[in-house]
């Protein structure tokens, strides 16, 4: 059931084109049924999880490698799963209307559903490797969605940037997860969390923390990796609403929260999260305030929220974790809603620029109302859930054990700017003098407004009666991040206290900022343009340039198109390493005993040597091909002589076919000329002799000493018993090592495709010229 729930998105994605043909323009509503059902399914787990239960579901995948499709549901993953499927429902409905008639609409849904399934897999996986697979899948689907308008060069560039940053971070994360597996000896989150190991005392702890943090920070757009997220706004708005505010960018946060109980004891963890989280929060808030595109404003305020979340995990007190869960839920609700509303505005007015919008409430009253409601939650005003979350955050900062005042100052500054930002997205476009927009504005259709309306209403209800969601599932989520049972006491009204006064002051200062935005923004924009030359994004471009330069340098050096050089390098490296190992591990002692060799063995050996020498000195190509063939047949004779008929037959057949292929190619080659200088020929000879000597010594050493028991005895014993075959060679190929063979036939196919395209392309070139 759980497996089906996670993978259903992939299954539905396959049949999207058919569904589209069937339902036409109502495709959004039809597809939204799946996430709606999933929401209901996850909601049905609430009572059990609310009681503190943890559900584990086991599915085997690759048991030999420790990889399984095990799922774990506790409070934290359930909250995420509900957000993913719940918001996903509305996003799919919204997208059907927003992208109505788009020629690639079914492709959009295919990727969107695959993303949803990957994201669900990510938050529900219990196995670290499976978690990583889903993590990378979200990066890839995000890449495809950012670059959805693939004919736009800018969108492609942004998509690639997002992919490089998140997938690059993903590689580092993989190293971190593997280190974590080394430390704990377990592949499973639930086991790691339950073991209560003192992870921070292990020698690998430092490296593991750094790797995991880099992975999480790139995914969740923390400073200095924050630049990819605003650029990801090149995606269609439903994507921004879903991936780049409500779900995917929170994957890093999810990982931090998930590992907090076992890794949060270390000081490095706390300080890194607090300091980088706070800087991200400030950077995001400032950049949001100084942008004019409505999607950019929202994107930067998402960066700010992600920073806040990271900081709260870093503080790690019971109160801070409660605030963390509340901010997480509140942010997903209002930011998902605001992004969809921004899409609606953009769709109906034809512009994304806030400065070009004004007085829209007359023409778009419903949109205006819902936007204001959602913006209230963003600003953290009562009676919305955003207020509850913000108050909790202030309170937890007041009681933070480390850096309390610094963090509080940062949070207050950020919240002042967020009040202004909330004004920017709600008051600025809808009130004030009417401005002419590119399109004649009117209210957005029902399908575009239902999602934001429901999400904002939920935020309102949660704000009015915060103990309701708390009792159901938030407490369980807080407990799973904190590491032990927690009973929260959420309330809208705590009386007049310090957090409330801070909120009041923030509101006042924020309103002042909003009023002066018109004057401030152009100046800030000018400063940002100068600063961006030294910012992390400039660093990103420099690194990318450096990578291309290194790549072209080493290609010129190693792969310069001269086949002889490739061969030379391959042979030298292989045999130097082999020779080094042989000398250091085995030493140089020969014991050659040829007494039990037969006369005809010598004949075969002589034939092989003679054909080799002839092949390398002859000036006739046909002659050298034929003598290489003789060499091959000699080897086949040896196989047959030492009773390996399978190898012998194979060798004979391969030799025959190779000679035929060579003969076919032979006529295409230019006439035989001497291109290499004598020096180069002596160099090649030396390398060849070196390789031959090393190989001979190696073979003699192999005969001389046996380090391990021969593995063939295992196959001899078990070939018939386990695999029902008497031909051990074949049983190894198709049963014991079937995966290798499967890989090999794919390599064969690749080679065939390569040769085929090379022949075809050449033929076409000749055709043209």
């Amino acid at each position, binding site marked *: 059931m759980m497996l089906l729930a996670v993978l259903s998105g992939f299954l539905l994605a396959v049949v999207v084109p058919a569904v589209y043909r069937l339902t036409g323009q109502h495709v959004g509503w039809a597809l939204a049924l799946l996430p709606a059902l999933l929401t209901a399914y996850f909601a049905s787990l609430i009572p059990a999880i609310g009681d503190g239960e943890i559900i584990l579901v086991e599915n085997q995948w690759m048991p030999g490698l420790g990889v399984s499709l095990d799922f774990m549901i506790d409070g934290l993953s359930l909250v995420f799963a509900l957000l993913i499927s719940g918001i996903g429902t509305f996003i799919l409905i919204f997208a059907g209307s927003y992208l109505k008639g788009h020629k690639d609409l079914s492709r959009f849904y295919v990727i969107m559903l695959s993303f949803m399934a990957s994201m669900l897999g990510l938050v529900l996986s219990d196995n670290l490797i499976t978690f990583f697979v889903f993590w990378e899948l979200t990066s890839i689907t995000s890449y495809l969605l950012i670059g959805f308008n693939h004919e736009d060069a800018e969108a492609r560039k942004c998509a690639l940037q997002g992919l490089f940053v998140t997938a690059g971070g993903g590689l580092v994360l993989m190293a971190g997860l593997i280190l974590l597996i080394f430390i704990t000896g377990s592949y499973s989150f639930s086991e790691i969390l339950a073991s209560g190991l003192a992870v921070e005392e292990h020698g690998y702890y430092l490296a593991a923390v750094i790797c995991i943090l880099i992975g999480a920070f790139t995914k969740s757009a923390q400073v200095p990796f924050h630049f990819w997220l605003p650029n990801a706004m090149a995606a269609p708005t439903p994507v921004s609403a879903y991936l780049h505010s409500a779900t995917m960018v929170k994957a890093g946060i999810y990982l931090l929260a998930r590992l907090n109980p076992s890794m949060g004891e270390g000081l490095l963890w706390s300080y890194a999260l607090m300091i980088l989280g706070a800087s991200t929060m400030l950077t995001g808030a400032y950049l949001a305030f100084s942008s004019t595109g409505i999607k950019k404003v929202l994107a930067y305020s998402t960066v700010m929220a992600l920073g806040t979340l990271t900081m709260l995990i870093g503080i790690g007190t019971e109160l801070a974790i409660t605030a963390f869960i509340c901010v997480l839920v509140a942010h997903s609700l209002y930011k998902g809603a605001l992004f969809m509303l921004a899409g609606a505005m953009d769709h109906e007015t034809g512009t994304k620029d806030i400065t070009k919008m004004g007085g829209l409430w007359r023409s778009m009253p419903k949109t205006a109302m819902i936007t204001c409601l959602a913006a209230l939650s963003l600003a953290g005003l009562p009676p919305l859930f955003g207020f509850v979350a913000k108050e909790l955050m202030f309170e937890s900062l007041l009681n933070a054990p480390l850096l309390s005042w610094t963090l509080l100052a940062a949070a207050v500054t950020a919240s002042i700017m967020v009040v202004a930002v909330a004004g920017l997205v709600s008051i600025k476009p809808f009130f004030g003098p009417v401005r002419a927009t590119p399109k004649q504005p009117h209210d957005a259709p029902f399908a575009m407004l239902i999602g934001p309306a429901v999400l904002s209403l939920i935020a309102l209800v949660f704000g009015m009666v915060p103990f309701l969601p708390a009792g159901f599932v938030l407490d369980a989520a807080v407990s799973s991040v904190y590491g032990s049972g927690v009973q929260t006491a959420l309330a809208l009204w705590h009386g007049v206290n310090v957090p409330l006064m801070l909120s009041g002051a923030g509101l006042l200062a924020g309103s002042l900022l909003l009023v002066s935005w018109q004057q401030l923004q152009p100046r800030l924009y000018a400063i940002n343009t100068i600063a961006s030359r030294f910012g992390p994004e400039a660093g990103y471009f420099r690194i990318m340039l450096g990578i291309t330069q290194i790549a072209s340098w080493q290609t010129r050096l190693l792969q310069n198109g001269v086949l002889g050089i490739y061969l030379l390098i391959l042979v030298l490296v292989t045999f130097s390493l082999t020779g080094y190992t042989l000398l250091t591990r085995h030493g140089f002692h020969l014991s050659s005993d040829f007494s039990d060799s037969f006369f005809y063995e010598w004949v075969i050996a002589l034939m092989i040597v003679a054909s080799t020498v002839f092949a390398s000195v002859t000036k006739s190509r046909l002659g050298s091909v034929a003598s290489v063939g003789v060499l091959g047949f000699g080897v086949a004779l040896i196989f047959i002589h030492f009773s390996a008929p*399978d190898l012998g037959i194979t060798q004979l*057949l391969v030799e025959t076919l190779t000679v035929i292929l060579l003969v076919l190619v032979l*006529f295409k080659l230019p006439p035989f000329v001497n291109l290499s200088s004598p020096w180069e020929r002596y160099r090649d000879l030396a390398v060849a002799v070196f390789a031959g000597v090393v190989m001979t010594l190696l073979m003699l050493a192999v005969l001389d000493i046996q380090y391990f028991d021969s593995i063939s005895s295992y196959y001899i014993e078990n070939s018939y018993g386990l695999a029902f*075959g008497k031909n051990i060679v074949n049983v190894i190929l*198709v049963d014991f090592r079937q*995966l290798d063979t*499967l890989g090999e036939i794919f390599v064969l*196919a690749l080679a*065939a495709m390569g040769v085929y395209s090379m022949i075809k392309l050449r*033929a076409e070139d000749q055709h043209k010229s």
Partner: protein
Amino acid sequence: MKSNTLILHTAALAIMPLQLMFSVFLLLRGHDEPGGGFIGGLVAASAFVLYAFAFGAESTRRILRVSPRDLLAAGLLLGLASTLPALWSGQAMLTAHWWELPLPGNNYLKLSTVLIFDIGVYLAVLGTLMTFVIGLMESEE
């Protein structure tokens, strides 16, 4: 490239069916005696190569009926398909499955995913080599 000698024509027509039958024989007995999909595929490929040398690429395509690349793809598909029964019954991927069909005279026909996989290897090898050879021969014409 097409030869015009009568000897090669006659010999190819006589030898090729034998080679093909032998290749299937090698494929089927491969699990217990020397042989198997790889060797069988090589023998089958050499049969078609002989035919191609005698009668040219065009007629070889005609007797193959399908494009060599489709043979290759079918081989890969069979190779992958043979891994599915194990997944279906909840075992680790690539676990072999065996079915024994009773035949008259107290004999049994041993069928298995391993055999399907071996047929896949056979087709992949045949497809690869024929892609090479036919491609090269056609580029000359």
